[in-house]
């Protein structure tokens, strides 16, 4: 009967993170979780992230309440190992406006990642003035979903704008009335902004509730007739600028701290080389003619691929400087800084990038960057980078001397691809060239090693068949 327990602690989501704020639990005592399930949402100085569970278990006790900031490594909850008999009564809310059959079955097969809705929930709650600790979660394992937050907002706020949204006109499905009650002001506002007809949206929330994601999905689908604008005012958005400004400042500070540490501790050395990428670009262009539009290979992916190959071959630059010595990494995880709209930078990692061929890497990069921009990264995607590639070519610069992300020991900088007069086999021609730099930690490697790395990288770039 005695259950073995383990602690779920505040994870480290990057070298610049000392502490994190628990934004919300997506599980509650009694919930069964599988390794990889998203169990909590954590806010760091840089971002709000979903955090996965690292092993199977049953939630036993929640130690840290939402809104609490705790240091990395502090226990946040205790879990019992699977099989342990943990019986916790499932509380039902007094008012349940969506009396759809409340099947206890999970909405999706366990093991499959939950919908990426977590990080936005807190923001949504803040917008709508909802206290998350008072919200009953209807998601898998009692997870709080947007629909729940919106429902709570609709229940608690008797203000004119936020409640009783007008129902969509036109024919309603059988459950239309119920569904209309389960569309929140936020989803409604989103629908209005995106020109989505709510009557045509398939709700995937419990009881067919329409969630913000459903509205986004509908917006991404081929356009239907646009919905008539219903609400010109958006009172909920009023709190946004404050939060954004606060986050921007915190992100600035986090970057400042990490980069100051880098320049304080790491004796950087810099190397550069200019590579003729004319053939590589032609090769990509050829490939892109056949690939679906959404899977086109961007030149940026080609630099990632070349770096991954080089990092795999010259392992002295792929790893960490820890406790006075270099610890090589077992795989190449590429850190890729992504600029966020509205300012700020976030650096997710592409795990095991050396194992990905260029087209796969291109898709991964695009997918990761798109989610980074949408604020939908998972905690695990922000950790574990073993080397970073920063590409400022988009911004027009030809050369980047980057600052290493500690505890990594190398950073590759990619500039703009430019057409230049260039000698090939004794003949002068106009070629597309790019300048690639390496910033490396002199404690971990010497210039000769760095030179070999850049040479491998450059050769791969100029011989695209290697990619």
């Amino acid at each position, binding site marked *: 009967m005695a259950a073995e327990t383990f602690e779920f602690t505040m994870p480290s989501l990057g070298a610049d993170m000392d502490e994190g704020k628990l934004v919300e639990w997506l599980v509650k005592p009694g919930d069964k979780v599988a390794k990889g399930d998203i169990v909590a949402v954590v806010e760091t100085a840089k971002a709000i992230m979903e955090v996965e569970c690292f092993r199977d278990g049953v939630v036993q006790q929640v130690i840290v309440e939402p809104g609490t900031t705790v240091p990395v490594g502090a226990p946040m909850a205790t879990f019992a190992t699977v099989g342990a008999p943990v019986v916790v009564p499932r509380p039902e809310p007094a008012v349940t406006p969506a009396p759809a059959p409340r099947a206890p079955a999970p909405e999706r097969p366990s093991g499959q990642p939950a919908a990426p809705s977590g990080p936005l929930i807190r923001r949504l709650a803040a917008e709508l003035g909802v206290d998350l600790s008072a919200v009953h979660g209807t998601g898998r394992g009692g997870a709080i979903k947007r629909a729940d937050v919106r429902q709570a907002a609709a229940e608690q706020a008797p203000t004119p704008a936020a409640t009783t949204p007008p129902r969509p006109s036109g024919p309603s499905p059988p459950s239309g009335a119920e569904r209309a009650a389960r569309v929140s002001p936020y989803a409604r506002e989103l629908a209005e*902004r*995106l020109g989505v007809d709510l009557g045509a949206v398939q709700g995937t929330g419990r009881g067919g509730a329409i969630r913000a994601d459903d509205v986004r999905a509908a917006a*991404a689908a*081929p356009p239907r007739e646009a919905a008539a604008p219903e609400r010109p005012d958006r009172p909920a958005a009023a709190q946004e600028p404050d939060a954004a400004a606060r986050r921007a400042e915190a992100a600035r500070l986090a970057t400042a701290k990490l980069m100051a540490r880098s320049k304080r501790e790491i004796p950087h050395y810099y190397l550069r080389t200019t590579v003729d990428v004319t053939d590589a670009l032609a090769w990509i262009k050829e490939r892109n003619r056949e690939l679906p539009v959404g899977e086109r290979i961007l*030149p940026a992916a080609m630099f990632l691929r070349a770096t991954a190959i080089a990092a795999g071959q010259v392992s002295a630059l792929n790893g960490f400087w820890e406790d006075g010595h270099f610890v090589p990494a077992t795989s190449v995880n590429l850190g890729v800084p992504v600029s966020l709209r509205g300012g700020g930078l976030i650096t997710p990692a592409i795990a095991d990038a050396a194992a990905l061929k260029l087209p796969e890497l291109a898709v991964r990069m695009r997918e990761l960057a798109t989610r980074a921009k949408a604020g939908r990264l998972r905690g695990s995607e922000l950790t574990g980078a073993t080397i970073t590639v920063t590409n400022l070519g*988009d911004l027009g610069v030809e050369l980047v001397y980057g600052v290493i992300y500690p505890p990594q020991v190398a950073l590759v900088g990619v500039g703009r691809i430019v057409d230049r007069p260039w000698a090939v086999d004794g003949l002068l021609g106009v070629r597309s060239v790019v300048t690639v730099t390496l910033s490396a930690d002199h404690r971990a490697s010497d210039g000769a090693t760095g030179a070999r790395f850049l040479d491998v990288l450059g050769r791969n770039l100029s011989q695209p068949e290697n990619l």
Partner: protein
Amino acid sequence: MTPDKARELMRDALRQVAPDADIDTLPPSTSLRDDLELDSLDFENLVTQLSERSGHRIDEDDYPMLTTIGGCVDYLAGLDEAALR
């Protein structure tokens, strides 16, 4: 497709990539990269949206025509006419 329809399509596609950019308040000469600050990935996502919504595969060779909001709208309107011939 009519210019209006092309504009609507562009509006919807742009919303996905740059939700803060409102096509109705921006002049046609608005540069996607310089004014809207789309990076190459944003741009690629925009092209993907435009391709899916218009049902036309937009090739990389046509990218030079897609540097401004107005350019995109004109391009979309022109695409359909060419296909109809």
